[in-house]
């Protein structure tokens, strides 16, 4: 357990009632979920709440976004104190891009579905990954369109079956493979049924500056949790192969690590937090992009469900920084910064005479 990394300084154990900014877990909750009992999406929601709580993020500084789908409803179920934006189907990335430009101080978390991101939203997904807009991008991946009653999505595995017996005969899009291909600098895969790993990955993602992409297998209990599905709880639980155990120490806690040399990889995040990856099955260097790609490819070939932090590059410049914007968010600038003086207009007029 990498948790022991932080345990030595006593921050693990039962979660304290208030976090570093004095808020309780309840302050990070949302409205009651209206999803089906047992839906994987609700499990992810819980970990999102926990991650923000434990990091002590100011909830009002978060913007939570989504597209359309059961998964995309979930921002209503966490962080009621954050502004929310449930956009149109597949178009969350463009909204996030605009929000990020207008107010780069906001922490953006977007939740999408496999239909929302891999079908209708593919174009925008590719381009937000390319631009590296700062945000946490979670795909709650169940291989089906939950909200429209269980049609296959583009991440459904070849040969997997609907309840009706209909078989999927198109190959799946591996969203993590795609993200690595597009140079996304934070790519992780996890499982709604693995809360410990998920919450650590979420915290790391929140600490990352740039697009942090998480593909989380999130079973749809109503339409895709039967035998023959490769996105069921049962299948995922049995097949899950974590690359490493993940520990996360936020910047505001002191690190006191206790591990055998060579058994743990350490990644320093932008905000000063640390991610510790305890090796499980041999070496895995998550900063090696080609290796990340090869690993994903081989896991798919072997029908292995590999989870963990697949790729990270803390040096890749994010879009907002590249623009060199004013320190104050553009959204809050007033006339004095936004309207050039009369002399400017005079100068322009002169040039047109």
């Amino acid at each position, binding site marked *: 357990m990498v948790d022991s990394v932080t345990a030595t300084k006593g921050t693990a154990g039962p979660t304290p009632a208030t976090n570093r900014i004095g808020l309780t877990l309840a302050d990070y909750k949302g*409205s009651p979920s209206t999803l089906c009992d047992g839906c994987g999406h609700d499990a992810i929601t819980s970990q999102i709440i926990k991650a923000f709580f434990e990091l002590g993020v*100011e*909830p*009002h*500084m978060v*913007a939570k976004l989504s597209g359309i789908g059961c998964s995309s409803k979930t*921002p*209503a179920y966490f962080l*009621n*104190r*954050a*502004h*929310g*934006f*449930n*956009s*149109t189907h597949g*178009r969350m*990335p*463009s*909204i*996030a*891009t*605009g*929000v*990020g*430009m*207008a*107010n780069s*101080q*906001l922490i953006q978390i977007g939740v999408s579905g496999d239909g929302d991101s891999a079908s209708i939203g593919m*174009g*925008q997904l*590719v*381009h937000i990954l390319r631009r590296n807009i700062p945000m946490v991008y979670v795909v709650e991946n169940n291989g089906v369109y939950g909200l429209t009653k269980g049609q296959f999505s583009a991440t459904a595995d070849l040969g997997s079956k609907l309840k009706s017996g209909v078989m999927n005969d198109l190959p799946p899009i591996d969203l993590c493979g795609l993200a690595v291909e597009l140079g996304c600098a934070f790519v992780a895969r996890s499982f709604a049924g693995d809360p410990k790993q998920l919450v650590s990955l979420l915290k790391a993602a929140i600490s990352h500056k740039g697009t942090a992409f998480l593909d989380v297998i999130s079973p749809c209990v109503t339409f895709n949790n039967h035998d023959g599905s490769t996105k069921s709880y049962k299948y995922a639980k049995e097949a899950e192969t974590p690359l490493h155990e993940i520990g996360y120490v936020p910047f505001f806690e002191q690190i006191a690590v206790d591990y055998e040399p060579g058994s743990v990889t350490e990644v320093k995040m932008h905000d000063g937090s640390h991610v510790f990856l305890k090796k499980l099955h041999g070496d895995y260097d998550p900063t090696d992009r080609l290796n990340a790609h090869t690993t994903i490819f081989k896991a798919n070939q072997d029908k292995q469900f590999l989870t963990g932090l697949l790729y990270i590059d803390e040096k890749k410049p994010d879009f*907002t920084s590249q*623009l*060199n*914007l*004013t*320190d104050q*968010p*553009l*959204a*809050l*600038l007033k*006339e004095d*910064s*936004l*309207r*050039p003086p*009369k002399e*400017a*207009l005079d100068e*322009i*007029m002169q040039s*047109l*005479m």
Partner: protein
Amino acid sequence: MKTLAAESASKQGTGRIVNDFSIQVGTVNGSGSQSSNNVLMRSIFQMGIPVSGKNLFPSNIAGLPTWFTIRVSKDGYIARKREIDILVAMNPQTAHDDVKSLQPGAVCISPAEMKLDLVRSDVKHYQVPFGDLAARATDQIKLRKLLTNMIYVGVVGQLLEIDQAEIETAIRKQFEGKVKVIDLNLNAVKIGRDWAKESLKKEDPYYVEKMDKTAGKIIIDGNAAAAIGCMFAGASVVTWYPITPSSSLCETLIDYLKQYRIDKKTGKASFAVIQAEDELAAVGMALGAGWAGARSMTSTSGPGISLMAEFVGYGYFTEIPTVIFDIQRVGPSTGMPTRTSQADLLPAYFLSHGDTKHITLLPGSVEECYEMAGAAFDLADRFQTPVFVLSDLDLGMNNWMADQFTYPEKPFDRGKVLTAEQIEKIGKFERYRDVDGDGICYRTLPGTNHPLAAYFTRGSGHNEKAGYTERPEDYLNLMDRLNKKFDTARSYVPKPAVDRNPTAKIGIVAFGSSHFAVEESRDQLRDEEKVATSYLRLRALPFSDELRKFVETHDRVYVVEQNRDAQLRDLIRLEMPDLAMKLMSVKHYNGLPIDARFVTDAILEQERKA
């Protein structure tokens, strides 16, 4: 392309025609003739004579026919004029057609080797050995093509008696600072001018003479004007996807922003520009930014408007401010990307499924492109909704003479935005509650540090607290309030410009780039046919009261517009069904800018029947 130089003036060779004619230069696009045409136009402008320039170019990059038309008008008419008086026929591909479509007595300047005099003998030919002259201008074969263009400037200058000093000034301005280039071009002009002086005998009536009608005026295209307006309106998030004829709006804006909105000391920018991957993303980014509190905008043309349909409906329903420019070109579909049109009026106004309608501004001059850009941001913020600004290719990309723009006096209207302090004072916040009774609710920006500040934006049914709902009464409440808000907008949007003639029985209604043709047509109707007209130029949707009064007080009202389906006429009919039969239609929709003669003829024809 025979219509292009079509219908040449039947000017008779008697007497001087001063400061009242049009010059058309037919070239090949990508050949660099733009600078020469610009120099020609500006030289005349500098002489104090009103001019306007229209570029008729193909939808490709190089090698196809292009026409540039300069209208010289002592009376200040700046609409397109159908008749071409002086043709400079540089393009062998079209020269025959171009010269054939002239009226007897027109002037044709052309390369000698084309032998256009064999095509027609009833126009005045000036045949120029451009090849030889170009060889004199430079040794470099590559440059000859370019300099040929300046040679015709010299020839035309000599024939029309344009001040050589003004040509020189114009050249210096055109090639700002590039000394060698300036010299080369000046020399070419001189070669042309000298040759013309020696070799040509003036046998046509066209002359320019100094006036004082352009002092303090500028020449600018509508897209640049809108760009300036956006910058001074504080546009802070600009998203776009290239498309003709809209691209130059954002491209010019980017240039200005870099110049005037980057802090000289810190190097920090008070704006973000994103070239989106397509129009769906462009408008999504604009909405995201508008929601977060920026002054956001995007610019596009017809196909982009169609692609934005879903998101614009979202913006209407969730009430997010943003500004969308539609620089109209000919549709449907790809249509004619380099031809002008006003056929997106109805599609933009009603854009998106369900019951939607949008505030739409209709600039009718470059000045208004500038002013309405500002107004659009204020209206978007005030009404928390996407606002369209409908310009078109003619207005947006052609050269218009105009008064200098005035610095905006009014502070920004950022609309109803609550701060944390205000919420604290009020003690509550409901996003979609009509507190003031005008249909406009209060909003908060993400990041507002108050426990009550946050709300959830959704394109699905929502109640006053922004909560999810499928309740019939919540939906009715929301839809009726949106309607009320739209009604409130009637008295906020730019009012129509009305010129009422108390003796007139007939009225004319027009919008956008049709304006200048209508103005000229009114003079024609008055001077040639003794028909008095009133004129209402519509400047925005939804309509305000003035329009009804105008229609009520005239027997017949001609709605002049540049589309096939009489879109504005129809919108007005819907607004005042009781007066529907008074509304007649004048439609010009062949892709060329509308001209006064067309309007005059169309009105007279219908008046005869009336």
